[in-house]
């Protein structure tokens, strides 16, 4: 089955150390008619509250916003988890935020974004994990796989820091291990 036939309801991208340039690259090459809501969960410095969304918007071909609580996901819009909040994807395609405990030393925790999307949209979830120096995201991405969603791990040889993709690979076998260029290709193949 073609990936575009799977009618994904959300794409969740998680990343940490070194991921800014990769995310920026992906967004700058994305088809402006990208048909699926995109969620970005990136580890960021707690004290730097602004700048990231502006930085990503500079090159992105789709709008990047930091959502308010209960904001609805929109096709072709990237929602960036706000600093110092966890982000959950809900059944009704809204975003819930949370200030509960730091998880994997992180808030936002990528595991929460992945596993909530998997829980809400099951096989209609596409998860991508990028470069990072932390094990956050591995379990969550596996939960997407367990629900028959589609999972992509950035090829560790193309990562600034390979800990995060490696932890995912240790835990389960993703559908694809891809370079950033190949990730862009897969995403753009979702456009009809």
């Amino acid at each position, binding site marked *: 089955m073609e990936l575009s036939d799977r009618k994904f309801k959300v794409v969740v991208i998680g990343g940490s150390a070194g991921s800014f340039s990769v995310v920026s690259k992906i967004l700058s090459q994305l088809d402006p008619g990208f048909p699926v809501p995109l969620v970005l969960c990136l580890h960021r410095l707690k004290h730097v509250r602004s700048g990231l969304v502006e930085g990503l918007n500079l090159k992105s071909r789709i709008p990047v916003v930091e959502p308010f*609580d*209960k904001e609805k996901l929109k096709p072709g819009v990237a929602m960036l988890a706000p600093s110092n909040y966890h982000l*959950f*994807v*809900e059944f009704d395609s809204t975003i*819930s935020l949370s200030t*509960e405990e730091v998880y994997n030393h992180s808030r936002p925790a990528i595991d929460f974004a992945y596993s909530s999307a998997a829980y809400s949209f099951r096989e209609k979830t596409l998860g991508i994990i990028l470069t990072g120096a932390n094990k956050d995201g591995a379990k969550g991405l596996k939960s997407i796989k367990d629900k028959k969603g589609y999972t992509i791990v950035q090829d560790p040889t193309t990562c600034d820091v390979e800990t995060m993709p490696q932890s995912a690979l240790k835990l389960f076998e993703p559908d694809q291990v891809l370079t950033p260029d190949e990730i862009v290709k897969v995403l753009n193949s979702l456009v009809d």
Partner: protein
Amino acid sequence: MNSCGVMTYKEYLRVLKEHSPYDFSDYSDNSIYRRIDKVMRDQELTLEQLSERTRRDKEFVEQVVEAITVNTTELFRDPAVWKYLYEKHLPSLAANNFINIWHAGCSTGQEVYSLLILFNELKLLDKVRVFATDISRNALEVAKKGVYQNQIDRGCIENFNSVFDDKTGDNTRFLKYFDVDEQQDRIGVKPFLKEKIKFIRHDLVKNDVPFYNKVDVVFCRNVLIYFNVKLQNRIVQRFHEGLYNNGILILGAHEGLSGFFKTKFDRQGPVYKKSNVFHLRY
């Protein structure tokens, strides 16, 4: 039961509602489910066993409620917001005889004390009366004691000084409000702040308000995010009714009001001011 004959979280929440005073059915799905999941893992219980104990053991229910409610808070979280309140907004309350405040969902109290410190710096503390409410017994106990661990490490003094643009570096201002034990990384709120606050146990899901005064300020940051839109609206309606005209509602940095309520409050930065617009009740 679902099609596989397995109990679902929703059904557990219904059991909890029937056998206790607590109703979590309008909480945001994902976060409540995950927290119940955590209780199950910590207690090594299945949902059926959890329900069984919930039906017959009241003290256990209290433990579950403590475990599934979120109690994270910090002193001066988001310094920019506090700075704005201090410089732009709170000074206008000086004309009032009394300043009544409802801190809804105060958790362990750090932000109630943060707010009182702003009023003291503005020399308005004498006029202030605070009702601080929360669902969690344990959190309220901590709030009343006003002793906090590991706050210095998390930058509470830096946050504090940045709110007041205090660059002296000697922390005199901070020490007016807190007894500090740096070795233990422990700070204790001074009694003159603590005695201003009336702590009341209260569940925001319930329709009552646990005091009779109208208020000038409703402070409710990062609490509504745990509720679905329906419940959020019900609570905001109650805040609206409880506020004097021109009273203000302060929400978290990424919380907003839904369409209808946008017309009943004017937004000014992080502050929502009750507008004089008259609406028939929908």
